[in-house]
């Protein structure tokens, strides 16, 4: 018989093994030395488990009856758990750590589709934390251990540790309707049982590779049968900054479905023409080569990777047609209509009123002392308090509204050196470039006024930008902190603040480092490419850092590269200018 590739691989291992023996192992290991090594390894493992235990949370509802597990990721008490653990708890829960203490906690954000929730524990600023691993590096067969609160055994607050293997990676587990879908998850035979839900699955080095949430049971009883699933650490990382917004968070669709062709390639089966994927050029029959940073070899692989990204993120995509490859970034739409998702979590908008004889529902949890200010109910939010927190943080440097009534005159030149001027005030927005003069009529729908031509609404975008600068953005419409998202790659780099204006929606992108406003996207609708302004060359003008270059793109086209000469106020005084 011939030695196949596997045979050769085995010979490589033999060679490698011999090398290790030659290099690192003395010709004879006596019993004492071997035992010392065993003890050292054991001690190392005990220490890893000890650190991992400290960051593991036993989650109980306020009555101490139901619950699950969680894991602390920040010293100020942000912890990840499952949505299905938090849901029956309501807004408040009690969390036990292995220090034997119980801490009050409040829900921050929920992701019902991905079965993830973010909670915040109170009482310390130095909570022990665990680190999220890069779960793309997790391999079938590697050792792992789960820590948690199986069967709610941790009444003494001491968690349970169970060892096992990674049985499989990139598994897919079907949703219940559209919720609780596990994509790209990690399968383990470490014993996970009811109560382990929301708790961490660790690699042998003590980094978190997943959040335990689900087991296969089928015809067996509701206990572990050697088959558990953990939400990947990378999915948790993508959603962490989005959940911190306090929102009810949605998962993503591409607006296109895939099929496997006769030759085994993954191709576009159907695509909706209003989607960003369509606008980026994806068409029926195109081959999907890579998505979300992964080679796509099967329809399942595509579904798997799609499920780990939040709605609204732009992710890299490579497709191929007639041998030509196109690499682009595509913005993902939501799985749900907003209201459908909110209803699944919060019930109908106008629920039946409470029976009059029962004005205080018996199961209404008492709000723990001092926590009332940390919860704010609002439609579409798990806890609006946290949205307000981030809005306040991002808008802190735009809080001065003393300039609210001012009109700003921005003058500059485009690449050809022609002058481009914009004037913006509380109810004024004007544009002049040569003989082209445009005005926004605030009596009419603002989103329909997409001037200047080809910009898909640059003048409205400039208006939103000025309203932000003068502390008036909340007057244009509803402002929401959307969470974090990546500008490039897949690591979140920016905070996103959205603001509606008429039927359109603006999105302010702030650098995570230093809160610099780096981009503004204005989408008059969700069927056309938004007007995207990249700001650069910031200089200080009268206490404000203002960008002296606006690069405006629609889709992949730069429609204006505007170099600013000066910002002036309606008083006519110069606020700054070209030196």
């Amino acid at each position, binding site marked *: 018989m011939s030695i*196949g590739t596997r045979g050769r691989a085995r010979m490589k291992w033999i060679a490698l093994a011999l090398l290790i023996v030659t290099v690192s192992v003395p010709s004879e290991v006596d*019993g004492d030395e071997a035992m010392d090594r065993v003890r050292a390894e054991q001690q190392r493992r005990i220490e890893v488990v000890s650190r991992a235990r400290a960051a593991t949370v036993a989650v109980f509802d306020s009555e101490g009856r139901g619950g699950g597990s969680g894991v602390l990721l920040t010293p100020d008490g942000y912890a990840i758990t499952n949505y299905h653990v938090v849901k029956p708890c309501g807004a408040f829960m009690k969390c036990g750590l292995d220090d034997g203490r119980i801490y009050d906690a409040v829900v921050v954000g929920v992701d019902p589709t991905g079965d993830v929730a973010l909670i915040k524990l109170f009482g310390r600023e130095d909570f022990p934390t665990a680190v999220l691993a890069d779960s793309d590096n997790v391999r079938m067969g590697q050792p792992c251990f789960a820590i948690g609160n199986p069967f709610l055994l941790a009444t003494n607050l001491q968690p349970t540790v169970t060892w096992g293997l990674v049985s499989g990676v990139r598994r897919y587990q079907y949703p219940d309707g559209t919720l609780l879908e596990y994509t790209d998850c990690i399968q383990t035979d470490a014993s996970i049982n009811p109560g382990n839900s929301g708790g961490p699955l660790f690699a042998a080095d003590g980094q978190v590779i997943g959040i335990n949430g689900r087991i296969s049971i089928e015809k067996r009883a509701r206990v572990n049968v050697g088959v558990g699933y953990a939400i990947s650490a990378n999915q948790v990382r993508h959603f962490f900054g989005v959940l911190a917004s306090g929102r009810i968070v949605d998962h993503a669709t591409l607006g296109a479905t895939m099929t496997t062709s006769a030759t085994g390639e993954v191709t576009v089966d159907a695509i909706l023409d209003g989607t960003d994927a369509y606008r980026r050029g994806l068409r029926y029959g195109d081959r999907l080569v890579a998505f979300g940073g992964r080679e796509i*070899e099967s329809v399942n692989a595509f579904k798997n990777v799609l499920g780990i990204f939040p709605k609204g993120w732009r992710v890299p995509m490579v497709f191929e047609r007639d041998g030509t490859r196109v690499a682009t970034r595509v913005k993902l739409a939501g799985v749900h209509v907003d209201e459908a998702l909110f209803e699944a979590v919060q019930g109908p908008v106008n629920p039946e009123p409470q029976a009059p004889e029962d004005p205080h529902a018996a199961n209404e949890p008492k709000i723990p002392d001092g926590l009332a200010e940390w919860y704010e109910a609002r439609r579409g939010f798990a806890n609006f308090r946290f949205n307000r927190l981030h809005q306040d943080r991002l808008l802190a440097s735009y809080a001065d509204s003393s300039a609210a009534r001012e009109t700003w005159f921005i003058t500059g030149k485009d690449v050809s050196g022609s002058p481009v001027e914009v004037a913006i005030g509380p109810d004024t927005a004007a544009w002049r470039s040569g003989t082209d003069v445009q005005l926004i009529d605030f009596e009419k729908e603002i989103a329909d006024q997409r001037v200047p031509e080809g910009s898909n609404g640059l003048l409205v975008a400039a208006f939103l930008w000025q309203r932000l600068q003068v502390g008036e953005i909340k007057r244009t419409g509803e402002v929401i902190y959307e969470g974090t998202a990546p500008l490039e790659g897949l690591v979140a780099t920016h905070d996103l603040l959205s603001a509606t204006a008429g039927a359109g929606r603006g999105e302010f992108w702030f650098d995570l480092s230093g809160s610099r406003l780096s981009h503004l996207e204005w989408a008059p609708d969700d069927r056309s490419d938004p007007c995207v302004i990249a700001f650069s060359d910031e200089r200080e003008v009268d206490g404000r850092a203002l960008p002296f270059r606006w690069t405006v793109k629609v889709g992949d086209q730069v429609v204006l590269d505007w170099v600013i000469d000066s910002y002036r106020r309606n008083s006519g005084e110069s606020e700054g200018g070209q030196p």
Partner: protein
Amino acid sequence: MMEISFRVKSTAAMLLVILGRWLSLGASVDAVFAADDLPRTIEQIVGETRGRIVKLFGAGGFRGLEAYQTGVLISESGHVLTAWSHVLDADPVVAFLDDGRRFEARLLGYDPRLEIAVLKLDVEGLDFFDLEQAVVPQPGELVLAFTNLYGVATGNEPVSVQHGSVTAVRSLEGDRIGGRLAYRGPVLMVDAITSNPGTPGGAIVDSAGRLVGIIGKDLKAPEADVWLNYALPLVELRRSIDDILSGKLVVASEDDSRPLPSEPLTLELLGLGLVADVLGKTPPFVDRVVSGGPAERAGIQADDLVLFVDDSLVSSRRDLETALRRVHRDDPVTLTLQRGSETMTVELEARP
């Protein structure tokens, strides 16, 4: 003194085996054992093994019967060893290799005494388990199970791996739970939960990456609602596998054109009552014998399993009835039976 020192060393060695190999705590620990065995971490064994496991999809999907199970490659030319079950009662049975290649599997033969079957894929050059390496693991030995559990893997997605140890090597004869198993020899009991949907036919692999057992069909103790986690030891299967591969236990040709006798034998004429054929593939277990009938006179008893009718292998009640239709009711017929761990041959005549 020498003895004590040796014992210390071997205890340490045992611990190192467990820690080093199974928790993969570092190459240096692994390599201590390079002298007597190749050092392998679980990840390495997984890497060597997953390509030798096949996902099988066939009949089922109703009445709680899964339409999928597991198989292992035992030749480079696509011979797949698996558990004999309802899943194989499909045309075609579809097999997926670890690399995602899809094949229609042909049933080459099966052995109802062991409830194993060998399928053939039309392919060459595959990696496979070398049956010559078969060993019987000892209780306490650590093993890995590779299975298509819960159908969670499709296409090129790898099967699942679980860990555990052999807890006993013993016969299930006399066990209430073992009563539904035709095979009476020793089985490998494991503490990994290997009895799950889709696991039959799965591989039990030892710490050297050798195939040591095949997970058998679901065995449940209905009184306790408990499933047994066990495997058929490979060493017990080898002769049967050889028989199948050499053509002795092959599936009867469908296009047998010999004329059927006008007055064939029937179960009634033999005074034989069999277990009801619920699934179409119910093994031909004797349910009762008619008092004073040919079967009783020949010494056949309830719970006997019919293996052969003359030289024809029968794996189901349906097979048995088909085989009887080829025998004239005036001719004697030879039945090969399994009773407990014994196999016996009896000759019957409907009209003595």
